[in-house]
Structures are given as C-alpha cells and as structure tokens.
C-alpha cells in the first residue's frame, strides 16, 4: 500500500473559492480512480492561496486483474454471426469458451500500474476542474483552446510513494519540487513523499491546512484583543476569508482615532470588514472599541510595527470617507432626500421608487385605519385592544376602524404613513450609495438625528426585516405596518404585471417578501386580510396608466373568511371613489377582473410558501394539505392555529381512531356516491354571498344534517347513540370554530369516536330496507361533514 501526493500550485486563488476547490479536487480524483477500480483508504485535501493539495493514502501498486466475459452466438449459429463476434473481440474461434451451447469470449485484463492510472488522472482532473471563473494566460493563450485555470498554473508535485508520477499539462511538468512561502521561503523545496509534505511546507512557512490557519487566526485575534483589554467580535466569514489570503497568518491589533466612534458602529464594522477584512472589538462595556485586528501573511522582521502602521492609515482614510458621508447626509432632511427618489426607476412598468413609496404610505395607513395593525395594548386605550394572537379569543364583532381619538390609533396611522414616506429616502444618501447593505439602518440614524418620532425612526430602520430565516421579526406596530405594506406592495405589484417567480428564478425576491409577511403575521398575531390587502395594492400598482385604480374606501369584516371572487369584486367596485360610468365602465370591470385573477394567483403563491415554511418547521405535509383542502382561508394566523391543533389531535389515540372511523365512513359514502356537502372553497365560492356572510368553513356544511336525528323506524341503539352524539358534537364544534378554539373543536369531534366505533361494530349500513340504508348513510355523511369543519381528514395519511 502506497500513498499519493498531488500539489497543484498556482498564482493566488481567490479566498472564496478555496474550500470548494479542495473538495472538488478530492471528489474528482476519487471518481477518476474509481473508474480504474482504485480506492484509497483515506482521502485528505488542502487549500492555501497558492496551492491545492491532495493526499490519497493506502493505494495498491496495481489495479486488480479483471476477467471480462462477453456472451457470443450459440453453437451452430450462422458463420457470419461467429465471424462478427470474433472480429469484435479480436479472438480466434479456438479461444472461445462454450457453456450450455453458447459461446463466450473471456478476456483477462492484467492489472495496470497505479502510477500509470494516476499519471492519466492528473491531466484529466485538471482539465475538468469546475472553477466558478477561469482564465487563459501566457504564450499558449495564442489559442483559445489553451488550458484554463483559476489563475496561471505554475507547478505540479505528483509523488506515488517517493517516485514522481510523470505527467505534463500546458507546459507544466510534474516533479517533486515546490516553493514555500512567497516571502519567507521563495526558493525551491523538495518534497520526499506524502508523509513529509505538510511538515516540509510548515518548515517553509506554509500551513497547508486551512482549518489550522483558521484556528491560528481565531486564537491569535482573540488573544490580541484580550491583551488590549478588549473582546473580539467573532466572524466566521472573516476567518475563512483571512485564512484564504494567508499561508502564514499573523493576527495584529491596530487602533483608530476615537473620534471616528461618532460614526454609527455598523458603518465602522462594515468598512473594516468589507473593505479591509479586519475584525473589530468591543470594550468592557460592550461598545465598539477603536481597535481592529488585521491578519498579515508574514512574520515581520519588526514584529509587525510597520504593517500595523500601514493598516491604521488605510482604515483612517476609509473611516474619514465614511464620516464625510455621514456628516454630509445628516445635513439633508430625509424628506428632501425622498424627493430624489423620483429619479430612480423601480421597474419600468411600476414607476419610480417615489411611486412605490406613495403606494406603501397609503397601504400602511390603510392597514392601521382598517384595524389590521393595532397599537400595542400598553400604548393604546382600553378597547383598542390587543390583536387576538392566541387563537382562543373571538375577533371583536365590531371592528374599530377609527379608534378613539385620545388613544394612539390616529397617531399610529400617521406615524406609519410618515415612516413609509421616509423609509426609502436613505437610498439616495452618500453612505448607502457606498454601502448598499446599510439601507434602512442609515435612514433610521438620520431620522432619529433629525428629530423624527422614535417609532418612525425604528420603522425606517427595520422595515426591510425579516430578511431571512432567523432574522429578527419586528413587533412595533409602526414598523409592522410599514414592513407589511412594503412587502405586500412588492408582491402585489409584480403579480399585477405578471412577473411571478418561476422555478429557481425569483429576480424580485418575491419568495423572501412572502416569507417576511408570513413571519410578521405569525409573530404579531396580525389578522391580515390577504385578499383585500393584495387587491388594494394591485389597484395602485400601475401609476400614470389608465390601469391605475385607487380602492380608497375598501372595507372588510375582520376575522371573516375569505371572499370568493364575486364578493371581492363587489367590495372593490364599491370602494372606488368614482362611480363606474359610461362606456369606460366596461374597462373598469375588466381591470377589476384582472385584479381579482391576480389576487387569486398571489394568494396561491402565499399558500405554497406557507406549506414550504410549515414543512420546514416539521409539520406533516398531509396535515397541511388537510387544512388547505378546506380552501379559501384568508387568515394566516387562524390557518396555522388550525394546523397546530390538528397536529396535536391526530397523534392522540382518539384522533387516530376517529381518523380510522372517518376513513371507513368516507369509503362507504364514496362507494354509494353520497357527495360531500361542505366541499372545499370552490363550492362556497359559487354561492355569491356578500363579504359579511360566513364562508364555507363556518357554515353548517350539510343542510340535510339539520333534521337527521329523527328516525322513521326503530333505530338500533348504536345508531341512535351516534345520532345523539352528533347532535351534541356538531354545535359544540361549530361554536368552538367560530371562537377559533380549534382544540375545543377537536375535543368535540373526539366524542364521536366511541359512538362511531360502536356503530360500525353493530349496525349494517347496507340494509335491505332502503329507508334504513338512506338514514344510515345520512348519519355517516353527518359524521364526515362534522369532521370536515376542522379539516379534510381524507388528506391525512395513516
């Protein structure tokens, strides 16, 4: 068993590519050897800025001999067939072996020398290497067919045991020589074998193992900070980046002028991190300190004094630029900055950023005025109330679109509008121009410094949140209003112009926006009327076009189930400021139809995101499907409460048994062709009820259920018991659902378990008497419909 060493040395490999390149090298090489039937006992790979290395331990000297058997013609087959087979295999007739009347060609292939396989594998792997970006170089690049590599390839060390594996690619010949650190050991060093590679290079000031370099940096940076009485702000990304820029990392602590601390700490951190790849530190009070840690690539003759001085100077220049931007920006009121947004195109069909701001401001105000966003209880007056976040409370039957003037309700709407109007103003500031990732944050700083209400400043700062999983979800009502309005507008606007995400393409990050909305609603218990909000935003999405519609007075009944298309359409028509009139009316109708269709698309998109999100959170997909199958739910909070209750219920014994009973009943009903009474949404959607009518989930699903308890014959005890259990459970379940007490609804259903079991044990559904049969089927239908009030159990597995 012998070890193999490969080192591919090049000019500096971008830090961000090294880890993947190291993995790719191992993967490709192992695959290449696998083709020859070679397998290493251990595979190790390394990356530094100047080299990729691979060590394969425990390779055999030769590949195994194989005997290949090929089936030929039968004995006595026409001579042409035999001749053809002999030509194909290159054998003579007497070399064939006969078995059961069939001729076989058996070719023994001796093992190949492993070194030979390796010599062929090296150029193959190099040519096939998947660099994210590669280049040509040097005299060979006279042809565009010349070798491509991430940067010029300079040397190959290839040793099998202590023997060089001879190969050549693009003028680079393999050997045993490499170089050490660019400045400490620029001369050649000779590697003996895979065994001494790591240590020989260490002696030449190269730490080949990236993990070791990261440890050195992490520890050294931490200690440098501690020595100065500070604590390091750890940063995994910087660790990798600095380890990818050094072969001999030396963390060094530097300082900057304390006066720069007047600039927001995020700006300092970002400048240090992005432009200079420095770590920053905290002082004992937890505040950003005027210190940084840079990572040099040499063990300097003067201990790093000159390096630190140089880096301090560069950072000072960067920070004075940042301070210049900050101070200049502070002098311009955000309102004036917001005016400049008219010059920035948001999307060619959707107008400028200023147009978007206008839409968001109106939508944010509407969200407050229509009672979707309410003041926090400790800020608002009595009766303004908490948003019902627990699911156990019934929504107030009389919404308060205009909360008491002495409360903060009015203020809240104005604050939300104000914040929305200023939220994007920082996009035109110098600082955000320099550091786009500071959008929002800088606006927050400028707003606070310019005397805006703290809630407005906070909303400007946080309205982009949450930007991803694990990001903070805002809870302040002003922020929630602006954050929701901004994201709703984005989704609505792009759906309005049919720019929907497809497959992996989501250029406008609509998926992220929808997940943000879901998180905001879930965390805050916000009862967002999704259909109405999207429709309102869609109406306004096309500024300066004849397609622009302002649904000024759009109203809805909070906590209600969603409207079907007709109801939404009626509400939209009623809310238009101008009445529909004349020949133009038909166009308006068309526009509203377009909007209603787009809303349907957008809500389906939300439903998909919610499913994905819940699946990722570990909820069984069949339970999600069971609740979604009821259709039409507008209220994300309520929908999730239902999913949660269902998940708890089906894992109980009652739940499992009820499910079994339900399935049995449903099968019989299906066989007998008894239709579902409370079919999911579509059935209700045909009904044409106004927005104030309860939708399909709340209605008594089956009209026939109302008078089913009377029997026209002598009922058997089990069937009478089931009937009375249904009589008791149905109203309880319905009431619990109205109260959004889904646990209660499940409990009511659980009482059906024993009666349904007894019913199936002792009652024959398929009685010869058609009256009995019909009555029993009716009972089963009632049972099924009662269960459907909670979820479509047919979708549940098991």
């Amino acid at each position: 068993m012998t070890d193999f060493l490969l080192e591919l040395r090049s000019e500096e490999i971008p830090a961000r590519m090294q880890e993947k390149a190291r993995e790719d090298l191992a993967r490709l090489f192992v695959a290449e050897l696998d083709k020859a039937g070679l397998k290493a006992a251990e595979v190790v790979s390394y990356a530094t800025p100047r080299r990729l290395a691979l060590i394969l331990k425990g390779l055999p000297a030769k590949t195994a001999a194989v005997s290949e058997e090929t089936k030929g013609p039968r004995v006595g087959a026409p001579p042409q067939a035999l001749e053809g087979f002999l030509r194909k295999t290159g054998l003579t007739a007497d070399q064939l072996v006969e078995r059961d009347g069939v001729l076989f060609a058996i070719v023994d292939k001796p093992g190949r020398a492993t070194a030979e396989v390796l010599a062929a594998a090296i150029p193959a792997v190099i040519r096939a290497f998947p660099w994210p970006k590669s280049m040509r170089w040097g005299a060979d690049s006279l042809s565009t067919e010349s070798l491509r590599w991430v940067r010029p390839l300079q040397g190959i060390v290839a040793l099998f045991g202590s023997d060089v594996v001879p190969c050549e690619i693009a003028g680079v010949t393999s050997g045993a020589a490499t170089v050490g650190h660019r400045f400490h050991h620029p001369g050649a060093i000779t590697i003996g074998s895979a065994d001494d590679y790591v240590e020989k290079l260490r002696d030449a000031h190269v730490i080949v193992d990236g993990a070791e370099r990261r440890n050195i940096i992490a520890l050294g940076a931490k200690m440098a900070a501690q020595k100065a009485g500070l604590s390091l702000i750890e940063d995994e990304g910087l660790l990798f980046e600095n380890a990818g820029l050094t072969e001999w990392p030396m963390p060094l602590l530097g300082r900057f002028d304390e006066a720069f601390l007047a600039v927001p700490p995020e700006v300092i951190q970002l400048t240090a991190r992005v432009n200079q790849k420095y770590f920053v530190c905290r002082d004992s009070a937890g505040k950003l300190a005027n210190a940084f840690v840079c990572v040099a690539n040499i063990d300097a003759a003067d201990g790093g004094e000159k390096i630190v001085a140089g880096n301090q100077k560069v950072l000072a220049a960067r920070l004075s630029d940042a301070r210049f931007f900050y101070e200049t920006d502070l002098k311009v009121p955000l309102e004036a900055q917001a005016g400049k947004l008219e010059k920035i195109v948001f999307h060619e069909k959707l107008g400028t950023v200023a147009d978007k701001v206008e839409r968001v401001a109106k939508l944010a105000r509407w969200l407050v005025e229509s009672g979707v966003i309410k003041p926090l209880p400790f800020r608002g007056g009595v009766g303004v109330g908490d948003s019902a976040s627990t699911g156990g409370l019934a929504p107030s039957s009389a919404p308060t679109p205009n909360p008491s003037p002495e409360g903060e309700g009015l203020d809240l709407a104005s604050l939300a509008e104000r914040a929305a109007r200023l939220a994007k103003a920082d996009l035109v500031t110098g600082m955000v121009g320099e550091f786009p990732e500071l959008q929002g944050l800088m606006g927050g700083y400028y707003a606070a410094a310019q005397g805006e209400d703290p809630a407005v400043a906070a909303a400007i700062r946080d309205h982009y949140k949450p930007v991803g999983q694990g990001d903070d979800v805002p809870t302040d009502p002003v922020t929630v209003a602006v954050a929701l309005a901004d994201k709703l507008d984005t989704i609505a606007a792009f759906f309005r112009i049919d720019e929907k995400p497809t497959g992996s393409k989501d250029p406008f990050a609509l998926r992220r926006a929808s997940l943000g909305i879901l998180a905001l609603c879930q965390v805050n218990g916000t009862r967002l009327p999704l259909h109405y909000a999207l429709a309102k935003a869609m109406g306004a999405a096309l500024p300066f076009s004849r397609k622009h519609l302002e649904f000024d007075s759009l109203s809805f009944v909070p906590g209600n189930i969603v409207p079907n298309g007709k109801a939404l359409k009626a509400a939209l028509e009623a809310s238009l400021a101008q009445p529909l009139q004349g020949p133009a009316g038909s166009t308006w109708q068309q526009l509203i139809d377009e909007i209603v269709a787009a809303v349907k698309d957008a809500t389906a998109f939300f439903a998909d995101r919610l499913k994905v999100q819940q699946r990722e959170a570990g909820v069984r997909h069949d339970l999600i499907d069971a609740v979604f199958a009821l259709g039409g739910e507008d209220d994300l909070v309520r929908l999730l409460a239902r999913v949660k209750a269902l998940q708890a219920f089906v894992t109980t014994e009652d739940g499992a048994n009820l499910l079994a009973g339900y399935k049995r009943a449903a099968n019989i009903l299906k066989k007998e062709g008894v239709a579902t009474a409370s079919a999911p949404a579509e059935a209700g959607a045909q009904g044409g009820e106004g927005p104030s009518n309860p939708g399909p989930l709340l209605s008594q699903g089956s009209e026939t259920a109302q008078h089913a308890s009377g029997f026209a014959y002598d009922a058997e005890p089990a069937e009478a018991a089931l009937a009375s259990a249904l009589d008791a459970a149905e109203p309880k379940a319905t009431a619990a659902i109205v109260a959004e007490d889904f646990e209660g609804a499940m409990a009511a259903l659980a009482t059906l378990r024993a009666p349904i079991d007894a019913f199936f044990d002792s009652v024959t559904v398929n009685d010869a008497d058609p009256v009995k049969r019909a009555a029993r089927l009716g009972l089963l239908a009632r049972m099924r419909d009662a269960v459907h009030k909670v979820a479509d159990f047919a979708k549940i597995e098991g």
Partner: protein
Amino acid sequence: MKGRVCGHRDDGWGEGHRLTPCAPCAKALPKPHRVTNLSEPLSFQRMILTLHDYWSTRGCLILQPYDMRMGAGTFHPATTLRALGPEPWNAAFVQPCRRPTDGRYGENPNRLQHYYQYQVILKPSPPDLQELYLGSLAAIGIDFTRHDIRFVEDDWESPTLGAWGLGWEVWCDGMEVTQFTYFQQMGGFDCKPVAGELTYGLERLAMYIQNKDSVYDLAFNDEGVSYGDVFLENEREMSKWNFEIADTDALFDLFRKAAAECERSLEAKLPIPAYEQAIEASHIFNLLNARGVISVAERQAYIGRVRDLAKGACAAWIEKKSPEWEAAYPGWAA
C-alpha cells in the same frame, strides 16, 4: 535572529531563518531599493524614474502619456489596441487619469480628479509576471520582510471598453497599490494571447513610501517641491469646473460630435482616429455624469453607446491588421 527552522535545512543549505532568509531564499527574494547620496525615501518623480528604469531593463518600451483626457491608463491605445492581435508587445508608461466625480476641491487628502497611473502591459503575459512585479516594488523601496504584500481577488471589467480580465488588487499593508490583470477580452474580442496588465496608483504608492497622510504633502522632487505645489490649485479649479461650471449643453453636443466623428472614421477605415473619438466620448460622458445631468435610466444607454464606439474601433483595428497577423502567425484568426 532565529525562529522557525528553514525548510532548506534538509538540503544542507543553512541553519534556517525566521526574519532573514537563508542564502538561496535571499537570492530569490527581490532586494529592496537602496540609494546612496540621495535622500530616502524616493520622491514622486524619482519613483517614476525608477520604475521606468526597472521596466526598461526588462524589455519594455517606455512610452509617453497619451495626449487625451481619459479615465484610466487602460484607455491608452498602447494598452487597448495593442492587447489585440498575436504580436508580442511590452510597454510601460505613465498616464494621467481624469475622474471628474472623484474631485474634492483639493480638500480630501486621498481623492483627486486628476492623478497618475503607471501602466505596464506585457503580451503574452510572462510566466514570472508576479515576480517581475514584486521586483518593481522592491526597486522603489518596499521591504518584504517588514511589509505585508497580498494578492486579493479583484476581477476587472470595463463596461465602456467591453473588456474584462481576472486578477487581483495588490495590497501593501492593507492598501491597494496595484491592479494586476490578465486581460481575457478587449472590445468584446478574445485576447489571443493574453496580456498581463499592471496598473500602479502612483500617488498611493508614494504616500505609502514617503509615509505621508495627504497627497498634497508628497515630495515631488528632492528639492522641496511638493505635490500640492504642483497640483493643489489645479484640483480646486478643475473640481469647480467639473461640478459647477462646465456647460452641459456644450458637453452633450461634444458627445454627439465625438460619436459621429468616430463613426465617420470607421467608415473611412481609420480605427485609430475612431478609437480616439471613443476615448473622447467616454470622458465627455464622465463630465456629464459629474454634472449630475444623466439620469439613472439614461446612464446605461450612454455606457452602451461608448462601448459600441470602442468595440467598433477594436473591430476595425482587427479587420485592418488581420491579414498581417495571420500571415505572421499562421492559423491565428480573430
């Protein structure tokens, strides 16, 4: 001083070293510049002379600046046009650069609307380009045992030239001192062969070598003339003109005329004059940009226009030279 043991110990070459390289390593390491008589460190003009001397002895033509206003040394036809075609080309020159939007009225110690780049172009890129480059840093006095030199990924792209390449920004103690690029395409055409381009920021390097915090404090020569003596008033006046005075109507007109003249030259099969007009259009666009009269939406359209002009000139240059190139390099084709 001895620290870790040198890898050469095994070859019997010495005791090993930490701070001072062992003999073979020291031989391979470029020597820092040492001058006698003249004061250390190098003045601005002596730095340029040293670079000229260094690259001249390494086979480069020492050219003079191009006599047109341009945003970067890459625009010099000695770079752009010469990067195309199969013939070897090695040249070094200083190119004054104009970046109207970077003007700060002489008030920012690090930003200028007019500054100098030192440009080296080597085609095809030699195998030891990095070592050659490091040798030039040593020549102007950078000591690699005390300063931290790093090659940090920075891929170069010029939307107005339709050009791109891969390479690095070279850091010296955290400061970018050079842009190091292997040109892959120019004017939308593959570079065959690839040229290596080194662009030194002369003022930055000088501030570094002379340890000055303000560009205006740099010693321009060894007789007490500062960079500020030469350029401070220039920066003040040019910033004012770029940002406030320049007649935008006249500039729009100039842009149109340069574009038209470029096209006329192309029709006349004159790629060099056409390319000059593309340079002109590019600079006029930069001035219009500084005056803030180009909207975000229009910006891309202007950049596209300049790119088309530059590409047209490159295409015409290739067309004109191709017979010659193909004759000298059989099998070569654009």
